[in-house]
């Protein structure tokens, strides 16, 4: 591969069978690069002077630095074993992970720092996929210590690593190694607060504010949706509610965890992440709408295998966050980023194989999409009736919850059924 121009070697040059090299027209790359404008623009539209600008730039650089490097690490590991033909869609996959519209809207619009914990989680997943379990555990503990919401992924990590350890020759030593790594990381991060039990307990109590109640606002999870029929807050006290939600969450995670301990494979690990994150989102205590970011991350990892799951989950996530974004006055960025995501997903030449197994649900999907559209317009224009001031939020929540449950059941079944090798890789083998 000869260098070109300024001396930069394009990574997307492939040697063909007849010895020549070609570089594909960078449509997927251009799609990825061009839509990253939106990242920048949103980050800076809030800055009004240089000092605020520098704060935003710092925030943004952190995101770029972390996301780019860690995601590229993940992509490198994920595609290391795949045949060459699938690599043309790598850029598309990178773009879908990085340009998650929910992440952009929450981190840069609502303003949070989810990128750090999500980035560390990505790195942890990449480390585990490349069999560096100790490094993975350390990275995940760091992610946990940055934002306790990363605990959504904890069951998957735990059960996969446990399952893997049990298959080693000396399971006890393996478990001990990992346990030591995790405890060590925690000790290092918590060291300023470990001088007294009181200080650590104070930190812990701030981390889990149970007094806020089992749900707040209108988040599309089980407790909030069923509260239309069953008024949980009135029926039970805090203690029984906490226990109930704990049991519900664990029982929802259980199938996925059992599968991972029983057959710890790398592909099912990614599914496991998605399942445990969704289970936590649906059944956990005090879930916020923004927590939908967590299931979206493993869904974007699986974008090559199950592209439709990512698309549908992202669209539902965006719609479920719509009331929150309207309050933040982010309607136009919402429309623009939603549009850009759909365009990116359908970018010409983005993916080689499109196994659209959901074509039979075409009409149902269209119907739901039109429902969403109507809901958007209604929410923005019509005032709700005085008796039910949160009617439209409730309808949005109901629709999104139903879709999340469907996705949850689907991905759980997918984790249990052994994955077939992709059709394209078998064709590639035929050519060789």
């Amino acid at each position: 591969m000869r260098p070109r121009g300024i001396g930069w070697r394009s990574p997307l040059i492939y040697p063909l069978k007849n010895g020549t090299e070609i570089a594909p027209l960078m449509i997927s790359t251009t799609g990825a690069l061009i839509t990253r404008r939106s990242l920048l623009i949103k980050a800076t539209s809030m800055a009004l002077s240089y000092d605020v600008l520098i704060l935003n730039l710092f925030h943004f650089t952190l995101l770029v630095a972390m996301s780019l490097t860690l995601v590229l690490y993940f992509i490198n590991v994920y595609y290391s074993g795949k045949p060459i033909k699938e690599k043309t869609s790598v850029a598309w996959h990178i773009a879908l992970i990085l340009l998650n519209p929910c992440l952009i809207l929450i981190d840069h619009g609502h303003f949070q720092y989810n990128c750090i914990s999500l980035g560390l989680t990505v790195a942890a997943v990449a480390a585990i996929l490349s069999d560096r379990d100790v490094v993975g555990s350390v990275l995940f503990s760091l992610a946990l210590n940055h934002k306790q919401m990363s605990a959504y992924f904890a069951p998957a990590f735990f059960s996969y690593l446990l399952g893997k350890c049990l298959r080693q020759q000396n399971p006890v030593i393996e478990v001990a190694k990992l346990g030591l790594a995790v405890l060590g990381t925690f000790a290092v991060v918590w060291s300023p607060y470990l001088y007294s039990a009181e200080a650590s307990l104070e930190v812990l109590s701030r981390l889990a504010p149970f007094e806020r109640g089992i749900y707040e606002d209108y988040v599309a999870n089980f407790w909030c949706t069923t509260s239309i029929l069953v008024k949980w807050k009135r029926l039970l006290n805090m203690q029984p509610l906490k226990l109930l939600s704990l049991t519900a969450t664990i029982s929802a995670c259980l199938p996925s965890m059992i599968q991972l301990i029983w057959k710890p494979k790398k592909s099912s690990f990614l599914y496991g992440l998605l399942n445990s994150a969704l289970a936590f989102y649906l059944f956990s205590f005090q879930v916020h709408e923004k927590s939908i970011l967590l299931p979206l991350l493993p869904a974007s990892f699986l974008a090559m295998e199950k592209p439709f799951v990512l698309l549908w989950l992202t669209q539902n996530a965006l719609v479920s966050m719509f009331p929150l974004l309207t309050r933040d006055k982010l309607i136009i960025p919402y429309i623009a980023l939603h549009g850009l995501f759909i365009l990116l997903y359908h970018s010409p030449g983005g993916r080689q194989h499109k196994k659209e197994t959901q074509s039979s649900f075409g009409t149902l999907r269209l119907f739901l999409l039109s429902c969403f559209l109507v809901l958007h317009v209604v929410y923005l224009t019509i005032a709700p009736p005085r008796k039910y001031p949160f009617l439209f939020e409730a309808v949005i929540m109901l629709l999104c919850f139903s879709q999340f449950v469907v996705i949850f059941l689907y991905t759980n079944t997918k984790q249990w059924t052994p994955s077939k090798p992709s059709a394209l890789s078998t064709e590639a083998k035929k050519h060789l």
Partner: protein
Amino acid sequence: MNHRKLRHNSTTQNQNEQIPAASIPKTCGNQLYHFLWFSLIATCTKLLLIPAYHSTDFEVHRNWLALTHSLPLSQWYSDETSPWTLDYPPFFAYFEYFLSFFASMLDPTIVHLTDGLNSKSHLTILFQRLSVTLSDAVLFYGIYRITRKLDPKQKYLIWVLAVWAPGLIIVDHLHFQYNGFLLGMLLISLSALENGEDLLGGFAFAVLLCFKHLFAVAAPVYFVYLLRHYCRGGLVKGFGRLVVMGSVVVAVFAAAYGPFVYNGQIHQVLRRMFPFGRGLCHAYWAPNFWVFYIMFDKLLAFLLVKMGFHVKAPTASFTGGLVGDSSPFAVLPTITPLISLVLVLLSISPCLLKAWRDPKPSAVTRLVAYAYSCGFMFGWHVHEKASLHFVIPLAIIALKSVEDAKHYFFLSIVSCYSLFPLLYEAQEYPIKVLLLLLHAALMWFGLSSYFGAYVPKGDERSHSSAVVRNADFVIGWFGKSYLMGIVVVDICGQFLHPVVLGNKLPFLPLMMISIYSGFGMMYSWIWQLKWIIGSI
């Protein structure tokens, strides 16, 4: 969804041919779908820019909405309620009138003459920005039309260059103007000429002139080309065609200016359209020839003073008008609008000669782009925004050879950089820098892969756009150092200047940008001139 089936078919085709490139569909519907993809991405990005900075041009256009909506036609060009008076030709006024209906439906205050003054309400901003974004549909149609006959790889790359042009986004969607649809009309006219539909081309150009008279710089080229190409075939037939073309143009102008002639206002209209009170340069000097003239004048004055001669300090400024005998130049002769016009015509003459001797449809775009660059280099009171007039048409022909591609790569970066001072607020700094960097990266990858290792397949059609693919797309060390120099100039102007000099010499960073881009623009103009002289 049939577009998915089409893509699936083309991907299976490609798998059989063992090229893991993006599928190159052969069907027209598919290409339209891909073009829509490009234009929708551009539109979504423009939506994100709605709350960003906008200049006084925003209030100008809002005032014109109010003017045309609230006042009768006879008062459009004489109203003085706001300092932003109507100074575009009548078709643009009709366009604003058309928009004002929608504006009044959305919020009547927008179009109120006095209540809406300096209105920056959310609805006003939303309406104006959306009107620019939607009128870009004309630009998209123009780009689509002019690239219709090219092969798909060329098409995609040109779409990347033109649909996602950063200069246009900076001027139209941040600074706020309506250049998109005007350039679209220019491209429609050029595509008609390239197809041999001369009457349509002439008609579209006449319409364009009645929207913005600044486009009249290329009128001599159009005239000569149409005279030689359209009015052919003997004396009688040629004369007949001349009459036909002439009557079309006259009809268009009559539709535009007719009502004002009827009202006896044509003098007022012309006075508004051609304000001679303005100076040689805009407040921020456009990177054209006059920048060097001015700098040379100052340098000479400095040297002469050092050598002991007495040099009278100029009393007038470059941005003010010509008042009496006072001249803004210390040593060199004064430039008047007449001198500027003569220079423009002189520089266009090689192009006119070429159009006269060899009126080929495939060369029209290049000749018109050259005419606009001459107008930019030597014109009177030129805005830096005028560089868009030739950058966008040059994007269409950027892939005809490696030299063209290198020239375009260079020119678009320089012209985009010269537009930076339009956005002077801190919050737009990352936006404009990243727009430029993204565009440069896209161009780099796209052009390198197009001219580099791509091996043409056996059954490739080579159309009238004969492509030379032997040479590689490599920028020499001089070009590279100039482009890196842009980074240096910008860092000095943005960051070092406030630190080192504080508030002194506030015009210095702008002057640096102006002069530095001026070198690039001069190079581009000379390169185009050489090309045209070489092909006569």
